């Protein structure tokens, strides 16, 4: 999936709601949409309350390295290697960028 592409595939109702936004804003909200999935296991804003490792307060480069490691099988895991395979380099970069800033 290419980041920052427009609403070309949107359905009728969606298309009616969509206004034109700069590509930068699109990429930013894409990073957000990608990263929201993380919190369901790693806790709100990545602050895990229990047994799953917390991912808050990490810098972007670290998150990218970990995700790529999981995806390419260099880093052993139970489920993260299966999850990480769902994201392209561009997507990992975008979600890591968002995660690094979220509080």
């Amino acid at each position, binding site marked *: 999936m290419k980041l920052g592409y427009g609403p070309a595939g949107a*359905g009728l*109702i969606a298309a009616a*709601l969509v206004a034109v936004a700069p590509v930068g804003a699109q990429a930013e909200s894409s990073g957000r949409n990608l990263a929201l999935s993380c919190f*369901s296991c790693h*806790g709100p804003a990545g602050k895990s*309350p229990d047994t799953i490792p917390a991912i808050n307060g990490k810098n972007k480069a670290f998150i990218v390295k970990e995700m790529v490691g999981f995806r390419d099988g260099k880093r052993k895991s139970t489920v993260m290697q299966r*999850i990480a395979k769902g994201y392209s380099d561009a997507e990992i970069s975008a979600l890591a960028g968002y995660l690094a800033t979220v509080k």
Partner: protein
Amino acid sequence: MSRLTRREFTAAAGASAAAFAAPAVAQGKGGRIVVVGGGFGGASAAKYAKMFGGDSVDVTLIEPNKTFYTCPFSNLVLGGLRDIGSIGHGFDAMKKRGVKVVQDMVTGVDHAKKTVTTAGGASIGWDRLILSPGIDFQWGKIKGYDAAAAEKIPHAWKAGPQTVLLRKQLEAMADGGVVILAPPANPFRCPPGPYERASMIAHYLKTKKPKSKVLIVDSKDKFSKMPLFLEGWKKVYGPMIEFIPQSKDGPVTEVDVGGKTVITEFGAKHKGDVVNLIPPQKAGKVADIAGVTAKSGWAPIDRRTFASTMKKDVYVIGDASIASPMPKSGFSASSQGKVVAAGVVDSLAGKAVADPSFANTCYSLVAPEYGISVAKVYAWQGGKLVGVKGSGGVSPKGAPASFRAEEARYASGWYASIAADIWG
């Protein structure tokens, strides 16, 4: 709530609510978001809409229960690993965030006026309506099974009193008894749920009533994570769990409530000491009321935005929606709730709605120290919502005990995390 009611009544009495709402939207400032249902999808949507929209949005969450009991981990209550209180979540944190929480049941939706009305008599206006009502049952599909019958033969497919009822029946059963579990055909809420339930009931029986057994009379032949469940059952419970596929006896078509017997299409009768019947399902009734359900009983949506394809400015998320290839899970519902909240807030502010990205991981416990999982990442590709090729899949077969134990630990970690992410 009364303040809200008065304000909305005034609005409705004056110009139409839609006209009343129009200026806020036109100015790109935000607007009123009403979320129906405080479960996995709805509470996620309400919390994140307020977080993303801040003061520009007015977010109201309508849910009839003061405490929401999660289906996830309700099987652990049945197995005796947890008590019911530990799976209940309130809405105090939601209120602190500035979400208006209305403890009431939506009974009407007016699309012209853009209001919902409630059993308690309130009328609440919206610019965007997000429905996450979960499921209701198709009573009557199984002959002899209705809401009254469910007080004797629980479904326990909505957590809370039904979970407690089934647990009490299991506790009251004598050693040597048979527990019948009758799962429905697809599609239904939580595809691996019945089989985790069989596992947790077997765990309870193995530790307390070892001469008993669990008989699964299924209305399908195959189920989620089947090879992993079968492997685990053999290892942990031996012959204690027996599975009868529909190709052998046919789907369950009837129940004899007094005789605690399920009857299949081919006429087989299975009598249990405890019977747990999970009936066929459809979208929660309020989706019908809102006019957003198709003949199938579920709500068709534009899978990019989760906007209803039947009504404007209405969104349907969670179990009620037709979101395939995503499964009907709490994880899916919450994932959808967060992304849809972002999209709704952006659209109200006049911004473009970004492409969605979702994920799902469903853990199941085969035994307290034996967890398995299925996962997938979902993306908008080529104008379709797809499961990303190569992503996800199930836990490996034949994995060592340490791997299963780690997944069991992560299952409880997942529960704590998602509960904090939604209701915390």
